[in-house]
């Protein structure tokens, strides 16, 4: 007897509760962006997610779960196990909290969709005080080194190996919290011969305008 099916007919939020009393590995296939994944579950706890035999970090794991909720692509099969070997990189997420968190994030993301920043806009951190709540806290930990220098959602998504739309969403939230601001390239330029030339040119044009007006 196996638990198997596709997310099209049995979405993840409906599947997880029935797996809550079991220990085993949920094999997931044909996911957009990720292909094949393994989710290790132990009686109501999501221990870890593995992609290409590597454990995913908290930001990546959350992005995968959101993708699984948002898309009806992919199929699954649950294989019970008796021995679970803990690892220091385990997520140890309560399934109940995962379900609630996913529902909240999907709702927020849908609501903010039209206001998400363009993926090419470069943002920079204003201060390094971390946000207090998940999932922003984990996102901040993974991205602060890049945000200190200034980075776009497009490039940050490549660094963090998560979909661009997730990074756009987190940047939108960080901006609302006053943690990041768009970079103005003109303001980052030091005094240079080009800048001096531009200033002289502006003076010349102003002189011409005021000469014309009088």
């Amino acid at each position, binding site marked *: 007897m196996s638990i198997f099916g596709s997310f099209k007919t049995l979405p993840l939020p409906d599947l997880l509760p029935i797996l809550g009393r079991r220990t085993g590995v949920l094999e997931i296939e044909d996911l957009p962006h990720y292909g094949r994944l393994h989710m290790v579950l132990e009686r109501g706890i999501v221990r870890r997610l593995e992609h290409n035999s590597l454990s995913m970090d908290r930001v990546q794991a959350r992005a995968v779960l959101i993708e699984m909720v948002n898309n009806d692509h992919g199929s699954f099969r649950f294989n019970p196990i008796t021995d679970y070997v803990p690892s220091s990189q385990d997520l140890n997420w309560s399934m109940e909290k995962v379900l609630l968190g996913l529902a909240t994030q999907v709702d927020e993301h849908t609501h903010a969709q*039209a*206001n998400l*920043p*363009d993926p*090419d*806009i*470069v*943002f920079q951190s204003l201060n390094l005080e971390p946000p207090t709540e998940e999932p922003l806290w984990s996102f901040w930990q993974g991205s602060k080194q890049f945000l200190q220098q200034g980075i*776009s959602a497009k490039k940050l998504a490549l660094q963090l190996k998560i979909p661009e739309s997730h990074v756009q969403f987190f940047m939108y939230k960080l901006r609302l919290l006053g943690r990041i*601001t*768009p*970079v*103005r*390239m*003109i303001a*980052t*330029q030091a005094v240079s011969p080009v800048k001096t030339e*531009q*200033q002289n*040119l*502006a*003076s*010349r*044009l*102003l*002189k*011409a*305008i*005021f*000469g*014309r*007006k009088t």
Partner: protein
Amino acid sequence: MKPLKLLISGPVGAGKTTFIQSLSEIPVVETDELASENIGKTYTTVAMDFGMLELDGIRIQLWGTPGQNRYKFMWDILAEGALGLILLVSGEQPQDFIVARSMLEYITSQHPIPYLLGVTRQDQPDVWTPEDVADFFGLPPEHVIGINATRATSSIQTLIALLEQIQNQKWRGIP
């Protein structure tokens, strides 16, 4: 000397064409077409407007570009080496602010271009003030100017404000 480029952009109905017409010394080349949806006016600019101004023998090309994201490729081409960007937004249309802000942030974070935000329709009674729009856009007040199209000098005052930005100080007269 090579002509300078001045980029004028903003959402539909912000007043880009009017602004260019009031500065240009040549008949403005327009690409207006019948609007395919209800945008509050019959004709709208589909690709660009082009005008020209000459000051002290220097030609300044005035390029008006639409504010929709699908024109990003044009913004990049025109912003390269441009004298500056004047982004216009109607103070009567707060529904356009997020799109306009995104456009401004895209261009100014990709190109070292001096910029000014012009808030048009300041002659109307129910309108966002430049100070409030600056707050929404997260800009210092000196980067935002109110524009009243009913005043003939409004466009030239906006150009002066941009040049003062580049010069990094207010015009103090001829020494």
